């Protein structure tokens, strides 16, 4: 909300520096986000009168002017062509810093001194809407009644400051100059003056000119005034100056006045050309299903019974509170206007505005809520301005149709209750003073605070609301001044808890961190074609779609973390980053049915992705993470469609439940994502890991007798797995088995096609004695025999 300081001063008698007032407002919850000095670029610019023009002796295009700037006459050399003797013009003098960045200094032009420059409208930061002639390509010729020598900011009414105030949704009343003026009173102790509302009206009654029928509860009050002989032309300077200052384009008297009242009083208004109101009757009613209306933005909208329209006896003439129809708008030949000032239900306006996608100053204001008395105050203020500027003849007695004024609200509280909420010791007298300064008329009765809430403060309903009013004006520094209660008095001691899910997630993340992986974080959104790119044909292709996504790429909720991870790896690859290892913890979302009728299933997943790393290294990192849990697992070939079928595995328990899948990505997927062919990916189901029992250990004693080692290399077919061989070795060793490790794999032509040599380090121990050489040899012979028998292995 933008307001100017001078406008506020119309209703409050104060003279604080702007910065000081802004700080006070911010401290009270009216956050001044920006202070704009309208005259920032107008210092050292004055009104001057050109008294003499001569040609420059040494330059064809330059003219030498003598300019009266009040206290003295200065010489200015100019190339401007639209100037003449006697013209009043803006003169920028040395020290000026204009809106377009030009800095003025004394200079010499072709040998003659020039003590300044004439300004165009653009150089002053104004245009034709502000002052006629300001947009022309040349020097701005000022009106003849401007005072010679006067500073230009004062002459243009720009010696003012604009406050841009952030208004919270609970304070729609402050979306107006008078609302903020009331706040200014509360924070400064000054007295609020209501704007003047009187007007002169004709003896002839408005009700003879116009009938209003109020049929819908979506409008709690509908007021209308009728003005004849309306004068539509450029608005008075003051109106234009103020609208310009708060960022509204001045247009003509009628439009400007409604805008002026909207800013000043917070009441939106609409003007109809009376001659287009069929039957001389306005009907405020719900739209009919399928009813359509063409409006001022050149579009036609279809409405239904949820929308409110202003109609005459034949047609809808406006979408209430949102936008006017083309069939009733003001034109150059308009003679008599109907001014509407109404209170529309904010929910209805919000729905309609959102549905048809039209947002106007009026709908924006109605969307925040307008109070009952505002319609009358706004209308009276407008009529006052019509009288003041002689803009037409007002028919007597405004039309006022309504469903009755809301009941005055009384809130009962007490100083002790408010202090208990705040934990403070603020005196009841201070509370009385603050509440009354805010217009909340409050009395102290038998220790209770009895507050009459003004109609514009619909947000105040109970002691908590009053507590907020008290503390925001009293100041939150109360807690730093020793005026507050001791904290934590009488609290119960509670026990903190991190929770099992976060504990698990943390331990997995920590394990991966120490394994050399970096944590990534991606949006939960993926594009609709992600499953296709990942070759997914199962349920995961049924993704939950966002109704209002930021774009196609971010339109669906992910059902796997693979897309995000591969995209992150692809990004790193594209910028030339080497040996990238990432992991991400996040949720995947799975609908029970689409479209959603109930909340979907959310699964906690952990993904890993890497390139420039071997399968074996990657596997070790994954296993390091899994070893944080009590999972006992084996590996089987994975069926994940986005993984290479021969270079991937599922981590399964004894029941075949899959806890994780990992491996090299499918070559087609690698191509789709533009990641290296040897890219590795893993996805771990954290929810399944969470369901496992806590990891416990059953510690055995350290062997008493020495461990004996033997190395054994066997030649087997490629299809025989390490797991096959180690299980066979273990079982052949029987009770003497201690450990087995594959330490070398060797392939060569001499071993034969499709053959490999697997070298194991086998460790044996007996818990009762030291093993003899013969015993060990015997066991190893048994192992070899078993490998030969089961897998056709031969000793290398």
């Amino acid at each position, binding site marked *: 909300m933008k307001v100017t300081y001078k406008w506020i001063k119309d209703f409050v008698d104060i003279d604080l520096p702007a910065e000081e007032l802004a700080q006070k407002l911010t401290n009270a919850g009216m956050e001044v986000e920006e202070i704009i000095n309208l005259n920032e670029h107008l210092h050292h610019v004055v009104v001057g009168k050109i008294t003499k023009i001569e040609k420059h002796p040494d330059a064809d295009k330059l003219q030498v002017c003598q300019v009266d700037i009040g206290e003295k006459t200065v010489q200015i050399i100019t190339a401007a062509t639209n100037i003449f003797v006697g013209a009043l013009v803006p003169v920028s003098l040395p020290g000026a810093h204009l809106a377009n960045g030009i800095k003025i200094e004394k200079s010499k032009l072709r040998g003659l001194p020039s003590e300044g420059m004439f300004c165009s409208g653009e150089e002053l930061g104004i245009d034709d809407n502000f002052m006629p002639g300001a947009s022309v390509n040349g020097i701005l010729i000022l009106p003849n009644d401007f005072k010679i020598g006067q500073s230009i900011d004062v002459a243009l009414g720009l010696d003012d400051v604009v406050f841009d105030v952030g208004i919270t949704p609970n304070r729609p009343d402050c979306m107006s100059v008078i609302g903020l003026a009331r706040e200014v009173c509360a924070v400064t102790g000054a007295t609020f003056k209501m704007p003047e509302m009187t007007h002169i009206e004709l003896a002839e009654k408005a009700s003879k000119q116009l009938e209003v029928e109020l049929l819908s509860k979506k409008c709690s009050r509908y007021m209308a005034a009728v003005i004849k002989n309306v004068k539509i032309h450029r608005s008075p300077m003051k109106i234009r100056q103020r609208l310009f200052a708060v960022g509204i384009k001045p247009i003509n008297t009628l439009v400007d006045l409604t805008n002026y009242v909207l800013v000043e009083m917070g009441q939106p208004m609409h003007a109809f050309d009376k001659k287009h109101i069929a039957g001389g009757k306005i009907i405020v009613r719900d739209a009919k299903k399928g009813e359509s209306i063409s409006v001022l933005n050149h579009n036609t909208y279809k409405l239904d019974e949820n929308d409110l329209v202003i109609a005459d006896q034949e047609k809808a003439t406006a979408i209430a509170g949102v936008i006017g129809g083309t069939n009733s708008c003001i034109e150059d030949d308009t003679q008599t206007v109907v001014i509407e000032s109404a209170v529309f239900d904010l929910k209805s306006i919000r729905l309609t505005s959102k549905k048809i996608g039209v947002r106007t100053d009026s709908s924006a204001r109605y*969307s*925040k809520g307008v109070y009952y008395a505002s319609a009358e105050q706004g209308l009276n203020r407008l009529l006052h301005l019509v009288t003041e500027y002689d803009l037409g003849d007002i028919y007597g007695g405004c039309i006022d149709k309504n469903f009755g004024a809301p009941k005055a609200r009384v809130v009962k509280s007490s100083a002790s209750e408010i202090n208990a909420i705040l934990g403070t010791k603020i005196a009841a007298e201070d509370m009385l003073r603050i509440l009354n300064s805010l217009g909340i008329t409050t009395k102290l009765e038998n220790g209770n605070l009895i507050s009459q809430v003004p109609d514009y403060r619909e947000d105040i309903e109970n002691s908590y609301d009053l*507590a907020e009013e008290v503390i925001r004006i009293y100041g939150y520094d109360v807690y730093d001044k020793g005026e507050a209660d001791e904290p934590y008095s009488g609290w*119960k001691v509670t026990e*903190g*808890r*991190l*929770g099992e899910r976060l504990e698990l997630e943390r331990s997995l993340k920590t394990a991966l961190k120490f394994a050399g992986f970096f*944590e990534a974080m991606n949006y939960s959104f993926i594009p609709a074609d992600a499953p296709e790119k990942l070759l997914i044909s199962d349920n995961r292709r049924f993704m939950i779609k*966002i109704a209002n996504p930021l774009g196609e790429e971010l339109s669906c909720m992910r059902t796997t973390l693979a897309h995000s991870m591969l995209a992150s790896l692809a990004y790193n690859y594209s910028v030339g980053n080497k040996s990238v290892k990432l992991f991400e913890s996040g949720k995947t979302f799975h609908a029970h049915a689409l479209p959603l009728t109930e909340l979907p299933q959310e699964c906690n997943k952990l993904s890993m992705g890497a390139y420039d790393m071997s399968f074996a290294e990657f596997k070790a990192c994954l296993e390091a993470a899994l070893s944080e849990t009590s999972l006992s697992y084996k590996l089987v070939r994975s069926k994940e469609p986005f993984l290479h079928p021969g270079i991937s595995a599922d981590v399964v328990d004894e029941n075949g439940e899959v806890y994780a899948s990992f491996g090299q990505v499918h070559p087609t997927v690698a191509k789709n994502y533009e990641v290296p062919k040897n890219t590795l990916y893993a996805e771990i189901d954290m929810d399944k890991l969470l369901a496992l029992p806590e990891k416990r250990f059953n510690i055995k004693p350290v062997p008493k007798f020495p461990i004996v080692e033997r190395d054994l290399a066997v030649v087997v077919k490629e299809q025989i797995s390490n797991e096959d061989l180690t299980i066979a070795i273990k079982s052949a060793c029987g009770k003497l088995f201690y450990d087995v490790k594959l330490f070398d794999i060797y392939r060569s032509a001499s071993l034969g096609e499709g053959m490999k040599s697997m070298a194991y380090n086998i460790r044996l121990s007996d818990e009762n004695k030291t093993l003899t050489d013969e015993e060990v040899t015997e066991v190893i012979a048994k192992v070899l025999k078993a490998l030969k028998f089961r897998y056709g292995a031969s000793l290398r």
Partner: protein
Amino acid sequence: MESKLKDILNRALSELKQVENMQELNEFKVKYLGKQGELTGILRGMREVPAEDRPKIGALVNEVREKLEAAFSEREQAFNKAELEKELQRSAIDITEPGKGHEKGALHPTTRMFNKLIDICVAMGFEVVEGPEIETDYYNFEGLNIPKNHPSRDMQDTFFITENILLRSQTSSVQVRSMEKLSPPIKIISPGRVYRNDSDGTHSPVFHQLEGLVIDENVSMADLKAMLTSMMKKVFGQSTKIRFRPSFFPFTEPSVEVDVSCPTCHGKGCKVCKGTGFLELLGAGVVNPKVLEMSGIDSKKYRGFAFGFGVDRFAMVYDGITDLRNMFKNDIRFLKQMK
């Protein structure tokens, strides 16, 4: 005989001084102390010594032998020490060569800040509660005193799935769920991911919050201030100060924005805090009694307060990260700096 022994001793000792290496030392040992050595030779010649002189000469021989052996061993140790010294010097390596084995990775700055904040809260007696990211309109809005089509909905641009199902825009949704389930005293934090339909240089459509809720008898705004002061000191250091500014949230009344003294300049004013000395980092307030009542908690008996952090923003301030986009880009050149 006696003079012969003295002569051997003097000769040997002076010869030992000339020995320059281990080989010469060994030759020396053979020459004087070996089986064929000169001292052994003397012992062999004992037969020619008169019987009465033998003990004396014998003792003298032993004395000479001990002296020679002591001198020899001293010399031998010196040689060994020098040899070891040389060996140690020879085997010196370049200690600035990089370590081997895999490099350590790192957690995301947001996770690190989450861990820090959560640990602080847990130590203060808060229980962590989590909830769904896809929520119903009720838990995200209505149960928090944000009715449908109410102006307070304008404060957050929300992603919708259907009319009634949405991506939670605040983790306060978890608080409503908790209030329904638990009975006071309640002291919970809800960390998690939230979504807003807003994306520019300072807004990410996905970000992370940690919200706290305390409900008990006799809690007040003063307790909130004290608790947040204590938390912020634990995050940013003992000299940290906080200040309240009035604000508005539908679920708290009174509501405040919480400014934390700038950890970069300690309140003096710098680029990070735009010269103000403070950063706007939290929202908080006393729980609106309407919210308590909606969740079935007696607002006459109990009061509550709530606070919410933007964890990503905390992390950025803490780690001096200036570009929000880096937080979700996963560029290893960014992540590696967190090692």
